[in-house]
């Protein structure tokens, strides 16, 4: 695990990592008045253009990590920096694909995708033009005037992707974006995500509970401990690119990496499982 101490220097913004979390702790107030610690002393560094996956057992604070990076939630302790700048509210250049459907149900596909440019001040015509381009890039041409309820789950995810990517984010945060999709649609979407990412220079933080998905997509996998979450270890995934997600799983090296990470992850999953059983029995 590399834990290089960095000192922040405003003149060397180019050198700074895309995302850096230092000894970050996040506590929530529970409705009953107690304090729930979601993350404790978490350190994480994501380089510019890197595709990182974050795996860990249920309830380990994976989604909270994304909320901290995006600025939707402030950290209770520690520092969160994006391109060398401390995160203080929602910053520009962040894309976020949510786990649940977050496309706007009262907007058509075109209006949904055009929302980002419009919010950042583009003219209606310009925004629509760019939206059409992105709709065709995610393979939804011809569906511009449909409402989300008229689309399948996979198509809604494509809308969500286009909606995020149209803003040209430098950092793309994805919270189990494909977990609700069927297996075939999922591997199609994974390949398309890789193609879209390769054409951009964005760093990606991809939260998932599926280790196979994590390895096949990413350059680096962070394993988070059972809650309160902290980084247990991180692994470089040195599989060649471009990858075909559906086939890369059959490579012997994939299996080696999988085994190595799984040894780490397994303990955490067991801890989390035991805890759930106990709280369920209580």
């Amino acid at each position: 695990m590399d834990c290089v101490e960095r000192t922040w220097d405003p003149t060397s913004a180019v050198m700074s990592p895309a995302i850096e979390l230092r000894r970050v702790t996040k506590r929530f107030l529970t409705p009953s008045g107690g304090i729930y610690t979601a993350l404790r002393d978490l350190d994480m560094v994501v380089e510019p253009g890197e595709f990182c996956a974050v795996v860990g057992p249920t309830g380990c604070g994976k989604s909270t990590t994304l909320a901290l990076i995006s600025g939707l939630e402030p950290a209770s302790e520690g520092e969160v920096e994006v391109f060398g700048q401390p995160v203080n509210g929602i910053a520009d250049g962040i894309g976020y694909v949510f786990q649940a459907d977050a496309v706007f149900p009262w907007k058509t596909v075109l209006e949904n995708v055009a929302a980002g440019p419009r919010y950042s001040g583009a003219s209606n015509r310009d925004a629509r033009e760019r939206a059409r381009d992105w709709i065709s890039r995610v393979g939804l041409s011809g569906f511009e005037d449909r409402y989300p309820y008229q689309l399948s789950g996979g198509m809604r995810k494509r809308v969500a992707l286009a909606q995020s990517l149209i803003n040209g984010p430098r950092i793309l945060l994805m919270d189990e974006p494909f977990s609700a999709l069927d297996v075939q649609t999922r591997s199609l979407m994974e390949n398309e995500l890789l193609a879209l990412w390769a054409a951009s220079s964005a760093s990606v933080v991809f939260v998932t509970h599926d280790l196979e998905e994590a390895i096949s997509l990413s350059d680096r996998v962070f394993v988070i401990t059972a809650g309160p979450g902290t980084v247990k270890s991180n692994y470089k995934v040195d599989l060649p690119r471009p990858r075909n997600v559906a086939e890369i799983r059959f490579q012997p090296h994939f299996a080696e990496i999988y085994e190595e990470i799984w040894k780490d992850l397994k303990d955490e999953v067991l801890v989390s499982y035991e805890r759930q059983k106990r709280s369920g029995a209580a």
Partner: protein
Amino acid sequence: MNADTEPAERPLPDLAAGRRRDAQRRRLTVAGLRLLLGVVFLGTWELTTRLGWIDVFFWSQPTAIAAKLWIWITQGTDLGPLWDQVLVTMEETVGGFIAGSILGIIFGVALGRSPLLSDVLGPYIKAANAIPRVLMGALFAVALGLDIRSKIATAAVLVFFVVFFNAFQGVREVDRNLIANARILGADERRLTTEILIPSALSWIIASLHISFGLALVGAVVGELFGATQGLGELIYAAKNNFDTAGVFAGITLLAAMALVAEALITALENRLIKWRPQAVTEARI
């Protein structure tokens, strides 16, 4: 998604045509039963009054009501041409409905957005909601005079609370994910309100409009009872003073017709404004 029709070996039974036939048959059944119910009701009323089982002086009878309506239409009412009375009440109702709805939406959205505001104003609004608000009509008649303003105010007060509570609840129930997504995409507070909160609350608000038009009508008519020179409420009031029960029922019939037309218009507005919602599979609304 869309079921692609593959070339079938054997001709499939035409399900769509069957379903259309069923729907057609059901529409006819409903229309037939509606007509039957109306005829039975009016027929019984007419018959029992003619037989003297029910006193026609107090309860009037359908033919007398129809005759009264015909006189109003052809010769005008005691207050002037019938159309003027309908128009006056319509103006009062629609004015109160619009004013009350707009105020209700503004306050509902504002309080839904601001926990501080809703905590501070909450008890006052609940208290105001608890009093019988039609009585405000008496106050308005004194304060605003006997012209159209006091009726609009009475109708607006009745409409306001219904729309307010629905708009408030609608804003409170907005999906947190949608707000987070809009903020990430760069929406400022104004855009968040106009593009996320209000559209999301719209289904709640529109549902409340169905009820509140009826309330606006109540407000306008009650306002007229507290003092007016024109309008259907005043017409009913005048008929009552002359022990003219046919006139009372004729006025009520006109009010009912107005409410039905308004209901159809609101439904059309609803279908237009929330076309993004999946069509309900069954028709549950009356």
